[in-house]
C-alpha cells in the first residue's frame, strides 16, 4: 500500500526472544515507531526467536543487536535510524 504524500520505504523488523519476557520492550518500541511515523513505514514486523535475542533492523540494516550492542535500544535512536532511511 502506498500512502498518499508519503514515502513508504522503511520496513522495521524487531526480532525478540519469546522466552525471555521481552514482549513489553518489543511492544514499546513498535508503539514508538507507530507514533513517530504513522503511515510512513511499510511494515513493522515482530519476529519471535530464542537465545536472548533482541535485534532491530531497518530495511535489512541491523541498527541494534543485544548481542552486539548490549541491552535494549533507545527508542529515539531507532526512530533516528528509521528517519535517516526515509
Amino acid at each position, binding site marked *: 500500500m502506498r500512502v498518499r504524500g508519503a514515502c513508504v520505504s522503511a520496513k522495521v*523488523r524487531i*526480532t525478540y526472544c519469546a*522466552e*525471555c*519476557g521481552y*514482549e513489553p520492550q518489543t511492544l514499546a518500541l513498535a508503539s514508538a515507531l507507530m507514533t513517530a511515523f504513522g503511515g510512513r513505514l511499510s511494515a513493522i514486523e515482530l*519476529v519471535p*526467536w*530464542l*537465545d536472548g*535475542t533482541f*535485534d532491530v*533492523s531497518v530495511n*535489512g540494516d*541491523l541498527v541494534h*543487536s543485544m548481542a552486539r550492542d548490549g541491552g535494549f535500544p533507545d527508542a529515539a535512536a531507532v526512530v533516528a535510524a528509521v528517519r535517516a532511511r526515509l
Partner: protein
Amino acid sequence: MRIDAAYFAQGVTYEAFKASMTRNREELEENERAVTLDPADLAAFRALPRPLHVVAVAEDWCGDVVANLPVLARLAAASGNLDVRVFERSKHPELVARYMKEGKFESIPVFVFFDEAFREVGVWIERPASVTARRAERRLAIYASDPAFGSPDAPPADLPDEVRERLLAALVQMRAELKPWAEREVTRELRELAQRTVAA
C-alpha cells in the same frame, strides 16, 4: 534486606504459583509429569538431616523457569525435605539485585537454599553450564548442517522467512531432544548443592 522466616512467608507455594500463572502452565505441568528422578538423587535429598528452605525466583514467561522449576518441585514433593516458596521476580527487585548471575545478569530461575536458621547455604541460577554449552554445540551443528542457515553470528532476521522458520524448528527440536538429559543435569547440580550443605 534480610531473608528470614517472615520474609520467606511472603513467597507462595509451588501450587499457588501454578494457580497464578497466566501462561505456560500446561507446559510447566507437562514438564513436571515428565521429570524422572533417579533413585540415588532422591535418596540424597531424603537423607538431608534437616529440611532446607528454598527461595525460588521465577516468572511464568521464562523458558528456564518452565523447564527447571518443576524439577525442584518434584524433588521437594518426593523427598519432603525442601520447603519451596516462589517469588515473582517483577515483585521482588531486592532478590534480583542480590542474586544476579555472574553479578550482572537478571537470570531466572534462582533457587536459594537456606538452613533451618535461614543461613544461606547455596545458590543455583538459570540452568547448568553444561546445558548451555551442549546447546551451543548443537546450535553450531544445526547451522553447519544447511548452508541456507548462514552464519550463526548473523541476525536471524536476515534469513528469508521460509529458511528462518526451518531454522527455528530445528533449534526447538534440538532443545526437545536435550530436555531429558538437561533435567538430569539440573537434578545432579541440585543434589551436589544439597550435599554440600550437609558437608558444611
